[in-house]
């Protein structure tokens, strides 16, 4: 034990400067996700990739050795929808609706960067003005490697995030990034564009909400009409551009439209859907737009009709880990919620289990929960509501990798894949489990000290230190 500690210490000191050529974690339990778990085995990491994994893998002579006795190795967790690294971003908002989680730490951007362009846009008078649209924005271009949230979320075992610009109706294209800190942002990027983030509320825009003075669109049906018009325009734009490219003579050149360019570049769209009604609406909408879609939110996915619709619709689903909480009310308040609202608050954490049972492709996402302790508790709540640990791990590793089309390089512990690993003492997502180390691109990190204020079990981050 003493020897291990010494080895670790030495290793840590080294890791700050540069990752070693190779690392071998031996005698550890390995949850590969893609195959059966290995009760006692070795993972070899070299040049940022997994060189070998198995129960009978020799430790290379040049490798630093981590004695994995009593440790479990999981693939690095993937946060399927995040805003980590995006300057000035609010935590990815769920699909509207009531009862935002209490556990959400407010977004605290490290750098005051220029606000997204759309924030100061003039009043829009119709779809032609491309309101609340920055579809061309690429998260990969916006990422700031210095964002301190990178370290915070990584401490929960999250090695990879699909991070998105989230302001606006067409907010922009998300990127899949590895959470290495302090490096050049370009080094973090796995896939520069994984999809277009669409939101149906105008939160964060001039006027906001109901749209008083905020211009078009000011209603949900206005937003939907706008999105529909954009896709009609994009199809027409493509048609005219192709015709022009074919033979420009005698033809007026098509006017360059960056909003449409951004939409055409996007491989898939992320649509918000929390309630059953919204899930139904968005599935139909995605089919109408003929766009591969991912629905995010999924609060009412616990309802059998919802899981059935999702299965039938074939869409992928991102379930928010920010479970609905009762609204803050005074003790003598006589406000009551409807039976449906109460039921949703009670059953929302059962959504992942329901989706699993129905055979729907789903992943979990942090929805702005940055603190490792809150993240771990949120996942635990899904476990308490019927999701197996195995399925929870999959929903945070291989499933999001499949949803974003990167399962060939990420999401499981397999030879040749990117060396993103979480090493825990105890089973992941358990109350007492400690994340011992995290490997991102083969670089080893130790979790930061929990920034949650001490206050015993149940303390939430929105009131650190209590009311003293």
């Amino acid at each position, binding site marked *: 034990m003493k020897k291990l500690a010494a080895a670790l210490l030495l290793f840590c000191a080294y890791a700050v400067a540069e990752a070693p050529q190779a690392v071998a974690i031996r005698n550890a339990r390995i949850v590969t996700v893609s195959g059966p778990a290995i009760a006692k085995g070795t993972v070899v990491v070299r040049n940022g990739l997994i060189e070998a994994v198995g129960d009978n893998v020799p430790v290379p002579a040049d490798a630093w050795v981590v004695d994995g006795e009593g440790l479990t190795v999981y693939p690095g967790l993937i946060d399927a929808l995040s805003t980590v690294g995006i300057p000035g971003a609010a935590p990815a908002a769920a699909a509207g609706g009531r009862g935002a989680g209490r556990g959400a730490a407010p977004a605290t951007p490290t750098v005051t960067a220029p606000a997204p362009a759309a924030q100061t846009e003039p*009043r*829009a*008078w*119709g*779809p032609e003005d491309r309101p609340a649209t920055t579809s061309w924005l690429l998260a990969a271009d916006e990422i700031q490697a210095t964002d301190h949230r990178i370290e915070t979320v990584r401490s929960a075992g999250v090695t990879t995030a699909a991070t998105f610009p989230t302001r606006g109706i067409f907010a922009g294209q998300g990127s899949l990034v590895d959470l290495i800190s302090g490096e050049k942002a370009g080094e973090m990027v796995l896939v520069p564009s994984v999809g277009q983030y669409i939101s*149906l509320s105008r939160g964060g825009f001039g*006027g906001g909400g*109901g*749209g*008083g*003075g*905020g*211009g*078009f*669109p*000011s*209603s*949900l*049906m*206005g*937003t*939907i*009409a*706008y999105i*529909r*018009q954009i896709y*009609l*325009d994009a199809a*027409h734009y493509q*048609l*005219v551009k192709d*015709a022009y490219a074919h033979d420009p003579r005698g033809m007026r050149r098509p006017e360059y439209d960056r909003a449409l360019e951004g939409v055409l570049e996007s491989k898939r769209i992320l649509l918000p859907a929390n*309630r*059953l*009604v*919204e899930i*139904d*609406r968005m599935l*139909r*909408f995605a089919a109408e737009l003929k766009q591969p879609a991912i629905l995010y939110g999924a609060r009412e996915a616990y309802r059998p009709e919802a899981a059935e619709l999702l299965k039938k619709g074939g869409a992928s689903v991102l379930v928010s880990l920010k479970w609905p909480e*009762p609204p803050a009310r005074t003790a003598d308040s006589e406000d*009551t919620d*409807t*039976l*449906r609202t*109460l*039921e949703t*608050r*009670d059953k929302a954490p059962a959504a992942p289990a329901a989706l699993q049972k129905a055979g729907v492709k789903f992943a979990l996402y942090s929805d702005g929960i940055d603190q490792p302790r809150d993240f771990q508790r949120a996942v635990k709540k899904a476990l308490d509501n019927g999701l197996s640990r195995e399925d929870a791990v999959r929903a945070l590793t291989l499933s999001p990798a499949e949803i974003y089309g990167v399962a060939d390089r990420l999401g499981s512990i397999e030879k040749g894949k990117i060396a993103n690993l979480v090493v825990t003492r105890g089973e992941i997502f358990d109350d007492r489990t400690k994340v011992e180390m995290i490997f991102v691109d083969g670089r080893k990190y130790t979790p930061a000290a929990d920034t949650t204020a001490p*206050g*015993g*079990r*149940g*303390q939430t981050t929105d009131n650190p230190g*209590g009311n003293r």
Partner: protein
Amino acid sequence: MRRILLGALVALAPLSAATIVIQNGTIMTVSKGTVKGSVVVKDGKIAEVGEKVMMPQGATVIDAAGQYVIPGIIDCHSHIAADGGINEGSVSVSSMVDIRDVLNPEDIAIYRALAGGVTTANILHGSANAIGGCTLPIKMRWGKDAQGLIFEGATPGIKFALGENPKRAGNPQGRGINGQVQVARYPATRMGIDDTIREAFNEAKAYKAEWDEYQAKTARGEHPIPPRKDLKLEALKEVLEGKRYVHAHCYRADEILMLLRVADDYGFKIRTFQHVLEGYKVAKEIAAHGAGGSTFSDWWSYKVEAFDAIPYNAAIMQKYGVVVSLNSDDAELMRHLNSEAGKVMKYGGLSETEALAMVTLNPAKQLGIDNRVGSIEPGKDADLVIYDKFPLSDYAKVQKVLIDGTVYFDRDKEVSGRAAKQAEKQKLIDKEKQNQQRQQPTRRPGQ
């Protein structure tokens, strides 16, 4: 456990039987007088009505002894069952938006309307702009999904609005329709509204010409690039082609005449004037155009343009040949349109049947769905309401409501099911309270 769950499902599902006979009731058919007898419902349609009917084998019998049966009530002006705002008020022409996109089948107002005997409602966009959004009639099929609400095959509509509402959003100092400060929006006057509508149809005509030309070229075997599809103009093109009904919010006689002139100039029809509180002043002109009038029974003076109203409006318009309906424009009023209808017997001396028609057959005609609903006739949809008392009375209570031959509201079941629902709710409240207490940080003594 499984069996219990299954039982619960059966209890929740609306009672749907292939054949139902409602017998011993007073049947107010609206179109064919009132008879004491039975209604036979087969496969969602009315099969037979009369004093004596052939009793089909295996029919479910509903005994309506001492009770009244009327056609399902139709509300020609409602704003329920829509998510995320009823107005796209940012622009003066918002015909690109469609209520169809935001239907919310879980709006409790649907169930409450059902409990008030309403089976069909025209869900309209708000009146914030001269040309509002696209609209459509729905049936109150509580429990179905959004698509399941839509009145299949009905001609869709579009909302227009005249007068104070669409122009006040244009006042730079003023407040918008939702009480929010709006950036100045043209128009700020009634003449501006006239101009806005005309400009929109100028655009729509040019747009239509563009598409007509494209189609002509395609028909000749050419391969032109199609014009850009513009959702705003697409809806107005449908109005010009008679494929979309115009439902125009209005109050004053002068603005009603203004819109009739615009419609004549551009060659389209106004299907209904909504509110139309001064309709009695220009009833002849409305009738000549072939437009309907959908008004309130006795509600006025809530704003200047509503000062000149009289409770005889509905009766007078009808006398001049206008098809008149009474609407709610409100989720609460919607629940007692039967007694609203009763008021035209006092104000205007209309008969019981004429009064009842104003919330059944007349709105069906206005919405172009009278071949399907609005009266109790063989072949029509079995949308029926059973009242315990004379249905135009304030004291009448809805007992059962059928839509397409399916019972969607049953007063006995509703009342008897309340305790269980309340208990379920209380259980969840208690559970939540317990969880909250458990989550609270433990206080040390003395703190």
